[in-house]
């Protein structure tokens, strides 16, 4: 390589940096960017997976705009986000806050909270689905019935089904968030707390003036991460409502499930791709918005 010798050290560094970077770049282009781009292209086509593709322009997007099921699904998706994120954030913070102060069996307790996160979502969803069944099989309803309380329609109801599915989803994600929160709490320098103690400040002030502000980067991370998770919810819903996916009457159907059904039940790939593009846009906007709202220097 004659040219290589004439390069300055800095230029050589750049060459080597790119040589090493080339591997992940190629990897990402082939398995990430190419399919993404291809989904954009497919969203302007009509294709049933078997035949040839035909260009249809914006037809898929027009169909989406005029599809009442899409708007229902759109609302559901945001319901998962708007209910799920704050609830899981508050619960996981409360758990982490107290777990952080517990010395007794600390490691064991932490493991207990983390276990659900490691369990397969499918297995978990089926167990919860059994919990929710009506008498005589369901755990919750059998309990209610034995106490003489009327049964609750958990899953076979247009109002209860979505929260019923959200509950195990929140529960399953808690372990991860608790761990992250605890790492955040441990990262706060002890000197702040010592200073506060010397000044004789109450726990509430410590919490709101020291702990929470210093946890801001952690909170931003968890909010963005769990929002993306709830916007992409699929496995819990699909497995808890397999007989009538996203039902009853589309009351629990999230966008990802609609995409799945359009693609692999109706074999309408173009329409499914258009929905994917919409989901991608939503995820992008929501994430950027959250980063913008919650940005700022943590030490301010």
């Amino acid at each position, binding site marked *: 390589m004659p040219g290589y010798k004439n390069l300055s050290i800095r230029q050589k560094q750049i060459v080597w940096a790119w040589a090493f970077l080339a591997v992940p770049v190629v990897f990402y282009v082939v398995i990430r960017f190419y399919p993404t781009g291809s989904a954009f292209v497919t969203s302007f086509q009509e294709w049933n*997976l*078997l035949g040839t593709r035909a260009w249809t322009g914006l037809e898929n997007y027009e169909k989406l705009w005029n599809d009442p099921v899409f708007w229902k699904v759109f609302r559901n998706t945001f319901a998962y986000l708007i209910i799920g994120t704050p609830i899981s954030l508050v619960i996981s913070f409360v758990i982490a806050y107290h777990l952080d102060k517990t010395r007794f069996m600390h490691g064991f307790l932490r493991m207990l909270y983390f276990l659900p996160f490691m369990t397969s979502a499918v297995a978990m969803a089926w167990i919860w*689905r059994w919990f929710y069944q009506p008498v005589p099989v369901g755990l919750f309803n059998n309990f209610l*019935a034995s106490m003489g309380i009327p049964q609750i329609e958990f899953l*076979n109801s247009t109002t209860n089904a979505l929260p019923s599915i959200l509950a195990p989803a929140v529960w399953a994600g808690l372990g991860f968030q608790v761990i992250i929160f605890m790492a955040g709490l441990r990262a706060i320098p002890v000197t702040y707390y010592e200073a506060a103690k010397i000044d004789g400040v109450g726990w509430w002030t410590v919490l709101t003036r020291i702990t929470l502000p210093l946890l801001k980067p952690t909170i931003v991370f968890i909010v963005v991460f769990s929002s993306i998770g709830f916007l992409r919810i699929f496995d819990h819903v699909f497995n808890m409502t397999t*007989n*009538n996916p996203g039902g*009853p*009457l589309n009351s629990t159907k999230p966008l990802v499930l609609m995409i799945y059904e359009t693609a692999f*039940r109706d074999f309408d790939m173009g329409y499914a791709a258009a929905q994917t593009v919409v989901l991608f846009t939503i995820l992008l906007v929501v994430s950027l918005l959250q980063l913008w709202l919650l940005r700022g220097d943590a030490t301010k």
Partner: protein
Amino acid sequence: MFKLLRRTALGGMTALASLIGSSAMAVEIEYWQYFFDARVDAMEQLIEKFEAANPDITVKMTHFPYADYRTKVAAAIPAGEGPDVVQLFYGWLNDYIEADLIQPLPTDVFDPARIDEEFFPMVQAMKRDDAYYALPTAVRSLALFYNTRLFDEAGIEAPPATLDELVETAKKLTKVDGAGNITQVGITTGMTAQDHHWWREVLVRQFGGEPYKDDYKTVNYTDDAGLAALNFYVGLEKDHKVTKSGFMDEPQAAFKGNRAGMHIDGSFRIGSLNKVRGLKWAVAELPAGPDGTKSNYSSYWVNGITTKATGEKYDAAVKFLDYLTSDEAMQVWLDIVGELPAKPSVGMIDANATHETYGPFIKGLAYANTTKFANESAQRQAMVDMVGRIDIEGQDPAESLAAAASEEQKILDDYYK
């Protein structure tokens, strides 16, 4: 020859003699079907018998979960990696032909005139331009499964023969606890299982209607007959309180768990019910309508030869398909899967037609209709939602029926445009 040499090098000299002796002329073909225990068992036996009769052909079976099936086939055949003989649902034939995934069966082996004569007439839907594209080994129909132990317990002597008797029988079989919760249903219901077929092709016709017009391109159940059929169906839960949709999650689960007196299901269920210990059951023909009308629904999976099969693989595929549609194969399929032979010559032999389990299904074939679906799952969803709106939201049945009809018509219009 090169392949042989390479194999020889790998396998060592001792293998040489056997290679030349037995498999030098061998051809391997691939067969794909979706995964269902009994179907896989049956096919394994058929392949074994076929290979014994044709030592120069080996058949490799691959199966996938139902949900992935169509996607895999569509991706594999154009890539030259798929099956030579493929199983597909009768409703997918048009899509497969249009996409050039399967080829017509050779008329010298599969003479259309002979097939017209020998098979049940419903298979004629597989014919295009005087050639068959695919043929079934077996067909399926519906019947009423009933739990004989619960029948004895309730002192019921015979399964219901009419819809009125069905309601009366179901009432005797229903059990409720002190709080009024159903703990045992008289009859299972759930449009998510086979009930949408029962409603569409059986109840609607029994109440004097015809579910579709123009060769299943136009929805036609919005008349009084359709409404009467719907009212009867939802009445089982609402008025007679003999059932609860979603009871024990799935109708077949309730029946398997001895918590349901009666259950309408397809012949393919026989195999899995046979495996349930402690369950005593029998089968009867579907109850007749108010004026005595009998009706049933039948469907089938077919086997076709893909466009990937050429040359000697094509010849082997033809031989294999010929075997799959033989009387012998049909009997094996019936015995293992419980699906009914596609030829009267096998189905109607005395041992089968009067068989206490298969008989009612086979009799049902004589008056069965086969729905031509554009998108079976989506069309079923319209039925699921129709009942859901009445059950959960208390919508007026007539309104819900009209909404379901317009939803389903949209699916049909999109498909046939």
